[in-house]
């Protein structure tokens, strides 16, 4: 299990094809694997290594640097509560304490039903909307304790179809149509860009 599915391999090839060097596609491909399995499996990382032409160790080396990549199973919903300075001033820590009570877990833990993982995170760029959080990287602004409990109830009851399960990021993907593609420019493509040359600025 857990190598990329055929559909995902096709997507992976399309993504790799947009970069001058295949390894540049690594992070987007790791997200694709996490979208498929909810977390990163060794098999998927090895498969990605094959696709971009680097060793599994190199794939792991990159993956392990980034907080969003999870090497273990996590909850269906990743609840990230910001406690950084703007949020701290407006009740972020109190919200986190409330969330711990409601969910019965500490940051870094997952509820026994496998639904929720809680994290105490750094600034998520919603500072004027404090206290705030993300569920699977979708925002909830200015959320109260009651609002939090309501959110948890709604998620438990399947009433938040706008929030996909953990691993899914953007639900719209970039797709460059073949007939509109300008093409990848590699470091070996030393030619002066056409519009620069045409403007007589090639020597600038």
């Amino acid at each position, binding site marked *: 299990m857990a190598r990329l599915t055929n559909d995902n391999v096709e997507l992976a090839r399309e993504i790799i094809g947009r970069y001058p060097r295949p390894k540049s596609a690594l*992070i987007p491909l790791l997200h694709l694997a996490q979208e498929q399995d909810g977390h990163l499996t060794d098999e998927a990382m090895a498969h990605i290594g094959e696709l971009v032409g680097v060793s599994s160790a190199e794939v792991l080396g990159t993956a392990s640097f980034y907080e969003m990549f999870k090497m273990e199973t996590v909850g269906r919903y990743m609840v990230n509560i910001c406690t950084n300075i703007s949020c701290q001033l407006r009740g972020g820590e109190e919200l986190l304490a409330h969330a711990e009570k409601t969910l019965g877990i500490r940051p870094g833990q997952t509820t026994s039903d496998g639904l929720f993982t809680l994290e105490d995170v750094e*600034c998520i760029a919603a500072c004027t909307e404090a206290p705030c959080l993300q569920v699977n990287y979708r925002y909830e602004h200015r959320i109260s304790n009651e609002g939090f409990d309501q959110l948890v109830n709604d998620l438990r009851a399947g009433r938040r179809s706008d929030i996909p399960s953990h691993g899914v990021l953007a639900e719209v993907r970039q797709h460059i149509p073949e007939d509109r593609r300008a093409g990848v420019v590699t*470091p070996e493509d030393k030619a002066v860009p056409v519009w620069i040359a045409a403007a007589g600025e090639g020597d600038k």
Partner: protein
Amino acid sequence: MITDAPRIITSRFDNADSFTLAGYEATGGYQALRKALSMGPAAVADEVKTATLLGRGGAGFPAGVKWGLAPENVWPRYLVVNGDESEPGTYKDRLLMERDPHQLIEGVLLACYAIGCGQAFLYVRGEMAVAQERIAAALNDAYAAGYVGKNILGSDFSVDVVLTWGAGAYIVGEETALIESLEGNRGMPRLKPPYFPAAKGLYMQPTIVNNVETLSNLPWIVTNGGEAFAALGAETSRGTRMFAVSGHVKNPGVFEVEYGVTTFRDLIFAPQYAGGILGDRALKAFIPGGASAPWFFEEHLDLPLEKVTVDRAGSMLGSGAVVVMDETTDAVKACLRVVRFFARESCGKCTPCREGTTWLENILQRIQDGYGRPTDLDLLLDVSDNISPGIAWPPKQTTICPLGPSAVSPIASALQRFRPEFEARIAYAQEARHSIPVTITKASSHG
């Protein structure tokens, strides 16, 4: 001074369809691109130079000058868009990406056209799913409409704009770390030299890295001319700029104001902006430009939001993040939170940063927990001095990137101003320790 300067980059924010191609085209969208194609690349670059558009990502380097740093006759060149917004207190690039993605894309195209970039990479912070979605949709529509890709609008200008995204790491906002990440590596800053990605960046080719807000200004500049932009603002700071005002204010929000002339007092107190301090309490301190900036106080309120003025006053406008703390704020707790951020986000490459920020956190944590020692404040300053000798402003660099030294300045500014508060906390802890027979149940891992 509050002015009636036009909204340059947030002009569509109130429109329900601001992020759609139809909404963008109906409000002048992609007209700057048409105009640019008739002007030629050099003329576009000149307008940007005339505008004196300072970079909005933190360092405030003029975009026109940066573009000129790409070495002559070295091809290909790349454009990398920095959409990694993650400096604590900063909230504007996400808004620009979610609400007006086409304006950013048009800005990217104008930059590529002027600089001669063969390909552009738009790097969005990993945690911003909606921004990624909006940009993906906008790019798909813009390709279909002939604005991006091969022979744009029938001209000889061709460029692919590739949406790419991160996976959670503050340090990736630093431009050389961003480039490493874009090459598929761990996001660690590069050793300098080479000093500027403009000379050697992505795949060691000339690469211009610009912030989302910086590039979002380009359509307006090309449409209205660099001079119209430079007519707004004062001194080095021209045009308008977005500021996020958060913390203890009545009306936290993101406001686009005239750069260089609007003051901190306007921003924090004016009814059309943040509306004053919560509960009409007194101001204790404010952060003028993100967590890396030394704190400002009451006496700085009348400074204009002008780069050089604020630099000279001992801090920075950084990423346009104003965080307001009222008189009830616990300075120790706030400092600890800021330091914990740097300790967590240090990439670990340099010893002063990795070890130093960790020790600053440990010491502040024990003060906060009631185990502070009388020598701790000098120890904090001593560790700070080891990270950045002299604890000066701007901070002296001992490390590969500015993250480590940046952790020092805010703490030092708070400690200097509120030293009695820190001392009282420690004295109280000492007294409590000696008067009550304590059984320490919560083991302090930081003692």
